[in-house]
């Protein structure tokens, strides 16, 4: 039994701090049982074969409480230079896993933002009850259950019809590790009502030199004719680790578009689980990881087609240097009812050092007979002939490599429709490809 787990179990017995649980009670109890059943996954667990998280639970952490949330000022956060900024954006700040209303700015009237515990008792009680913990319940790993059993200080976001992308929602997950290692478990439930449009941007940052470990769960429900654009940027410190789980459920004919950019961190595990629960849904899923040093990144994606006529197109690309490790595992399920499914998946990697590692595993499980599906992965190094071509025109070897890698990254970067996010990410990527990589 690990110290963190022991501590959490004691906490659970004491019950939640505010004592009001209502519809959250059963959810937490069930999750706690699942956590006890599944525990922290070891390398024997097929889904965690290449990513060892148990060590992270052996460390000592401070746990998020409301006192630590207040010690950072908005200025310190917004001017830290580590986050993408956008003047028109709604800014939602979590510090050590807890939503901080005082650090946040809500600008859109079509956006309802409430602490989850509060939303569970008011006007949105039915939505919370229908959707919170729904998608995560199918996941048989203890880490997801751990978040649900202990979530506290989470947030509910409800997008009403007509929210335009001029007012995107930027969520900053800040870990304040200035006075020691910190463990946090942010929780977010995002509900896009019929016809709503939402641009959601999530970024992770650690302020301080000690270690941070974030176990985040975001659930997104996309109703009929709604449209989600979802960007994630992971450029955290070398002392930061995270298990970043996002469940997207498209409950009506709807469209989602996601891009996840990963540049830095000690250990990053992304779980992106997408379920089409209605016919004629569409989703585009893109990812770019560009790593060096000792970073470890693991992208696990699931696209679950349960209804007919849905389309998904997934492309993840990686540039892996230094001693870094990248893992990609993409699953596509096509259930028996999901005829006329179009599902495509591809993972492409370039290794730029002899000591970098990539493990890629695309998987298709098809139970319907009238579908179009493809998957594939490549792992290689830079093309020598292309390198020679550029050098034969007078480009230095380093410059030629940098241009080729930027060209490789481009078809993901151009999928970022938001200009401020794209500009911010482009800058990070060109810095990384010009200076850092061997």
């Amino acid at each position, binding site marked *: 039994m690990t110290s963190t787990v022991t501590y959490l179990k004691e906490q659970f017995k004491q019950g939640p701090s505010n004592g009001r649980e209502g519809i959250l009670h059963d959810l937490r109890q069930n999750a706690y049982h699942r956590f006890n059943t599944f525990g922290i996954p070891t390398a024997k667990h097929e889904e965690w074969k290449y990513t060892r998280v148990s060590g992270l639970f052996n460390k000592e952490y401070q746990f998020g409480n409301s006192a630590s949330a207040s010690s950072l000022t908005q200025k310190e956060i917004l001017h830290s230079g580590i986050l993408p900024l956008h003047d028109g954006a709604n800014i939602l700040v979590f510090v050590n896993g807890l939503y901080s209303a005082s650090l946040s700015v809500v600008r859109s009237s079509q956006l309802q933002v409430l602490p989850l515990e509060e939303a569970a008792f008011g006007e949105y009680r039915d939505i919370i009850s229908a959707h919170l913990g729904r998608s995560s319940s199918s996941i048989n790993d203890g880490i997801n259950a751990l978040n649900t059993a202990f979530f506290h200080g989470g947030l509910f976001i409800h997008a009403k019809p007509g929210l335009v992308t001029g007012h995107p929602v930027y969520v900053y997950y800040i870990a304040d590790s200035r006075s020691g290692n910190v463990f946090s478990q942010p929780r977010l439930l995002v509900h896009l009502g019929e016809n709503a449009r939402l641009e959601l941007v999530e970024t992770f940052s650690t302020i301080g030199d000690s270690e941070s470990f974030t176990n985040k769960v975001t659930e997104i429900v996309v109703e009929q004719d709604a449209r989600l654009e979802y960007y994630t940027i992971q450029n955290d410190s070398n002392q930061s680790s995270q298990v970043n789980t996002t469940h997207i459920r498209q409950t009506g004919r709807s469209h989602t578009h996601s891009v996840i950019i990963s540049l830095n961190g000690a250990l990053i595990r992304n779980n992106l689980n997408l379920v089409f629960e209605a016919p004629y849904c569409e989703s585009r899923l893109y990812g770019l990881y560009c790593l060096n040093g000792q970073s470890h990144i693991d992208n696990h994606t699931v696209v679950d087609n349960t209804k007919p006529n849905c389309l998904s197109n997934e492309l993840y690309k990686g540039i892996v240097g230094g001693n870094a490790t990248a893992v990609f595992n993409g699953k596509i399920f096509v259930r028996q009812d999901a005829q006329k499914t179009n599902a495509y998946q591809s993972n492409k990697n370039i290794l730029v050092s002899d000591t970098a590692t990539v493990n890629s595993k695309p998987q298709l499980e098809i139970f319907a007979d009238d579908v179009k599906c493809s998957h594939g992965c490549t792992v290689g190094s830079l*093309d*020598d*002939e*292309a390198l*020679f*071509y*550029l*050098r*034969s*025109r*007078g*480009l*230095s*070897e380093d*410059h*030629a490599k940098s*241009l*080729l890698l*930027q*060209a*490789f*990254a*481009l*078809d993901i970067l151009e999928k970022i429709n938001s200009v401020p996010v794209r500009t911010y990410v482009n800058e990070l990527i060109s810095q990384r490809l010009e200076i850092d990589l061997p």
Partner: protein
Amino acid sequence: MLSIRNLHAGIEGKEILNGINLEIKAGEVHAIMGPNGSGKSTLASVLAGRQVYEVSRGSIDFLGKDLLELSAEDRAREGLFLAFQYPVEIPGLTTTNFIKTAVNETRKYRGEDPLDAVAFLKLMREKMALVNIDQSLLSRSLNEGFSGGEKKRNEIFQMAMLQPKLAILDETDSGLDIDAIRVVASGVNKLRNKENAVLLVTHYQRLLDYITPDFVHVLYNGRIVRSGPKELALELEERGYDFIKHENGLAAEV
């Protein structure tokens, strides 16, 4: 300008060039012809610095510098240009961005200031007209989805932009129809002057109908077995390469 002496080179221990001697002076056009496998493209590659080839003996002097001591990029910056037989497709990198980087890295090497956007655009417009290439092609990813003719025209456009002292055209005519050959040849002819030189590597005589060489060299089994005026190319066209093989007593091996 270029002086090759007793050049021996090969790949993975297999010798392909067996003692090449060649002198090229400013203002001259030389054509290297020869049957398949004679070493033509190897010679072009060794000159441009393709790393898979190993030079075992001999020397190459280019404008007073030891060419073999220079990296591929420094050879380019010193004024050597290779038009590729198979130009590489690079999705995600536009020709414009690529050639701008190339021009400015070369200028930097020569101690010149980089061209600003206006000056670069002016130079580009001028050279585009010279090789009859469309702006829209240059805004696209480098060679991606280009036809054979477009790729070769793009090579000549790059040559025009970089203004090399010595241009090596490796089988530039291969895979092109007669109209495309005319366009490419006309571009090369417009770029010729007293200060620069051209080395044409070709299997067929037809390119030489449009770019007239001062000297023709026949390469066979890694050596230049015959050199002569432009009429030599016509003789080769008429008689085929077999007579060269017979003259050199090696027909049985081929």
